[in-house]
């Protein structure tokens, strides 16, 4: 089981980084969401793995519980990265619409008051 | 007896899921892909219920239900995208 999770984290990380290294905004965003999956699983797994032991207290019998803390952290992380993804999607879209070009690279000479700037 | 039935069902739905994956990756048109994704979602729900049945736990129910609800939403979104390009208009 651990091997599966670990390898999954690895593969998600690799794919994510590979996409982040592309030169257009959209693949980069995809890469970021992949690597977000990776890190969420990673963070979750730091609580070690457990089956059928949700951290929901059982009043009647004494059952094992998994580590709830990483879950809470991952929840927070998921929410935050959702917000972040939404923002970068929006910025990327605005950038594309403003320049009709979805390359993510710039030139060192680019500047907000360069001629032709519409801001 | 039920165990074996469950394992049989596991196998069937597991195979089904893999076939869906295969279809998603190899399909010729995005429509078929979306169809395959939708089917995969439904198969997954089946697997979750089966597993809950196998383990005698309830914790899969909510997830299964939410997945059933949201899987539909995303399928519709994809379809609208393919038909109209614009999913909210």
């Amino acid at each position, binding site marked *: 089981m651990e091997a599966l999770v670990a390898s999954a984290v690895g*593969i998600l990380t690799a794919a994510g980084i590979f996409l982040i290294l592309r030169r257009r905004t959209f693949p980069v965003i995809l890469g970021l969401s992949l690597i977000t999956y990776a890190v969420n699983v*990673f963070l979750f797994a730091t609580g070690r793995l457990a089956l059928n032991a949700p951290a929901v207290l059982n009043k009647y019998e004494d059952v094992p519980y998994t580590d709830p803390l990483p879950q809470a952290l991952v929840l927070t992380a998921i929410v935050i990265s959702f917000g972040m993804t*939404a923002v970068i999607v929006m910025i990327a879209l*605005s950038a594309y619409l403003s320049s009709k070009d979805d390359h993510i690279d710039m030139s060192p000479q680019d500047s907000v008051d360069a001629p032709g700037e519409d801001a | 007896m039920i165990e074996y039935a469950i394992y049989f069902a596991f196998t069937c739905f597991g195979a089904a899921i*893999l076939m869906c994956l295969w279809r998603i990756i190899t399909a010729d048109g995005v429509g078929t892909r979306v169809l395959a994704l939708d089917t995969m979602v439904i198969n997954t729900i089946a697997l979750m219920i089966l597993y809950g049945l196998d383990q005698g736990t309830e914790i899969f129910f909510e997830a299964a239900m939410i997945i059933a609800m949201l899987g539909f939403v995303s399928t519709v979104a994809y379809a609208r995208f393919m038909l109209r390009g614009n999913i909210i208009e």
Partner: protein
Amino acid sequence: MSLFLIAALPFLGAVFPALLIRAGRNAAASAAGLTTFLALMGLLIHIPAVMRGEVVTARFDWIPGLGLNANFMLDGLGFLFALLILGIGLLIILYARFYLSREDPMGQFYTYLLLFQGAMIGIVLSDNILLLLIFWELTSLSSFLLIGYWKHLPEGRQGARMALAVTGGGGLAMIAGMLILGNIVGSYDLSVILQNKELIQASPYYLPALILILLGCFTKSAQFPFHFWLPHAMAAPTPVSAYLHSATMVKAGLFLMARMWPVLSGTDAWFYIVATTGLVTMLLGAVIALFKDDLKALLAFSTVSHLGLITMLLGFGTKFAAVAAVFHIINHATFKAALFMTAGIVDHETGTRDIKRLGGLRHLMPITFTIGTIAALSMAGLPPLNGFLSKEMMLEETVHTTWLHLHYLVPGLALVAALFSAAYSFRFVGHVFLGPERNDYPAHPHDPPIGLWVAPAFLVVLVILIGLNSAAIVGPLVAVVSSAVIGGEKLPYYSLKLWHGFTPALFMSVVATLGGLFLLGLHKHCERFWNTLPRPEAKVIFEALINRFTQLSRWITDELHNGVLSRYAIIFVAFTVGLGYYAYTTGTIGVETRIPLPAQFIPIIGWICLVGATLGIMWFHRNRLLSLVLIGVVGLIVSVAFNYLSAPDLALTQISVEVVTMILLLLSLNFLPTETPWDSSAARRWRDAAISVVAGIGSGALIYAIMLRDFAFPTISDFHLANSYKGGGGTNVVNVILVDFRGFDTFGEIIVLGIAALIIFALTEAVLGTNVRGYLLNRKPHWPQSGDSHPLMMVVATRVMMPIALMVGAYIFFRGHNQPGGGFIAGLIVAIAFLMQYMASGYTWAIERQRFYYHGTIGWGVLIAAATGLGAWFNERPFLTSDFGYINWPPLEEFEWATAMLFDTGVFLAVLGAVMLALDSLSRFAWRPGMAQEFPMDINPLRDDPPEQDEEKEQA
């Protein structure tokens, strides 16, 4: 007057000219003059004390922690220089008032001048070398402003930048030197340092300190090879040249060498570095000066030469030489300032400084001629003028100096230098004033108003008086100053008389004078020869160097920060992985303490799907829609995996976030290209893949290692499990952690979400405000659109589903505290329920029926959450302290209430508002006027042709 005040006055005074310039040029000038005059008076008050050889001090602990204290001291040396600075300063102010033209902003000029004056005073009065450094660099800065005063002259700008670069750079070197020095002695106070000669000269750091400090001095005093900046600083207005580049700033280096003389001199290193530099500078300056046709250039190089002379004297390290140095400082200040002003007058009156175009001015400008000639002859070293006395002493001293056992080298070269200096002095007189009168002067020359010539005249009077009876006039001063220089030890024998009998020095003087005349006679031929010599133009070299360096750094900067994100990311990843690996290998890994769980059938299926989908994304990422579908698969698997691994809350959150994210991406993909073109070479992709794989292996291995080991210490979550129910009133520990134990995280998290929505809204506004709006209205869809955009069946289905979905949301919310679920997931579900209406019945139709406003919802969410937290303050508890209890209303079974639920309500609202606002904003991009539809369904038979019986009913 307190030394503080003397040092402060110029700075305070610097304010007035800038302000008073509105009141007229005289006001500005007199303000500057008055300030200087006051300072001067304040200085002169101390004459008695100084002459008694006392040291006036003023101390203030500024930064004791650093040893940088505002300590000032006034001894003979300081007094002399302060006198020069303020005295000549006063004359310069007067002179400049008449020199500057109408166009020149005079207020600025005097402000800069006073700033500079203050800095100089600071240098000569500092009793703390760090403080001295401050003033030292200030002189560089203020002189930068003065030299660049004529902004429109390129020479001015370049000269200023060059001066700043050289002197400022030297100053930086000196910082290091001073820090070392202070480190050796253990104090930065000069008075302390000056007591520790042995300690300093014994230290291994003596040489580096010496060299670094001398770098500062030499650059400031334009010693070879740093002499080149001075002539170009002459682009400054003449008053500036006269003040900075003859009387004061260039002497700062000399001052410091004199100041440090007691502790630094007397070693071979000192002798060979300082004396040699001085000698070379003296000679070089003199030779070059002879062949300069620009009056000010001639004077500039002569200044270089004389500075070299003084440096050399200080370098000799003998007390007599020190006395000679001091004496010559005084003399040079007098005649050189006078000469500069003369040159200024000539320039001002004739409109040129080019010697080749001058000559025969003696009748046209008799006063100027007299002043200039006397000063020049003093510079040439002719009796009975003061220049003669100090030069005699210099020559005298060279005779007793051997350089690497060469007895004749120093005197010989000194003689040559003296000869050349005599020559250019004569040339100054001969080629400007003597000779036939000409009729092609650019302007019509005549003697200037008294305001211009009174200052130099005064100096020339000094020149003569000192020459005739130096012992009476400057004798005491020289004595005091010299004793200060040599560290208060007993003065050597010396006399300031004109006649010492037939000494070698006398012969050398005669030779120099005659040789000078002779050389001037041959000037034409020498000049022809000189012009054939290859002469490296320091300025050109310097400019070229700076430009080259600027180009280089531009190249480096732009190559390094070339705007290619993937490059940045690769460096990031490589660096991270590398350091992580380093950290791992330099530690020791413990033994595995956990047995892995068996991998069952279903997880393997899931794993295959995950891996398949992920690789699929990598492979097909150029097909954007497909990669979205595959991401959907990944999300599905991950959320199911969470559920499988006992994290139902995560599963629910993950899947709902998944769907909303996907919808966001689809909304944006509607405007983006649906294909990513190939724009990276195969090689590049392989490199990227390699790096990615390495990073993947890294993260995978790391988590694998963690999972197979127990916590090194009991984890704090045991506490959460133990206290979730009795302390937090909930059985779903995860939710209790979120809303209670770590509620502050969640508080921040909903704020993040809210901000995200705000940004999306704000950007939408910004972008739709520009010409983008027009583009959006005219853009074509990616592909032909189908008809029937709101199919009847979809509409009906969503109508049935919506209430149920809301019910589910409510259910998820209310059970959250005790079962998987909670405000966040509920918020997403409700949002999606409304979203379904958007998609089915259309944006405009649905929005009309919207009952809540997104900004408000977000705001209320955050405020409710905050209010729940603040509520605790009222019963003396910290922020976010929760409370809960049980209500028992028969016949109902008892049920629980918890403030945490209220907090979770805040979360719910914030999430709902944020998601809706985000989606709403994005949908507005696609909105176009024609789209407003009054009906939810495009096709509705009931509406279009109602069946007959319905109409009958209506009639009935």
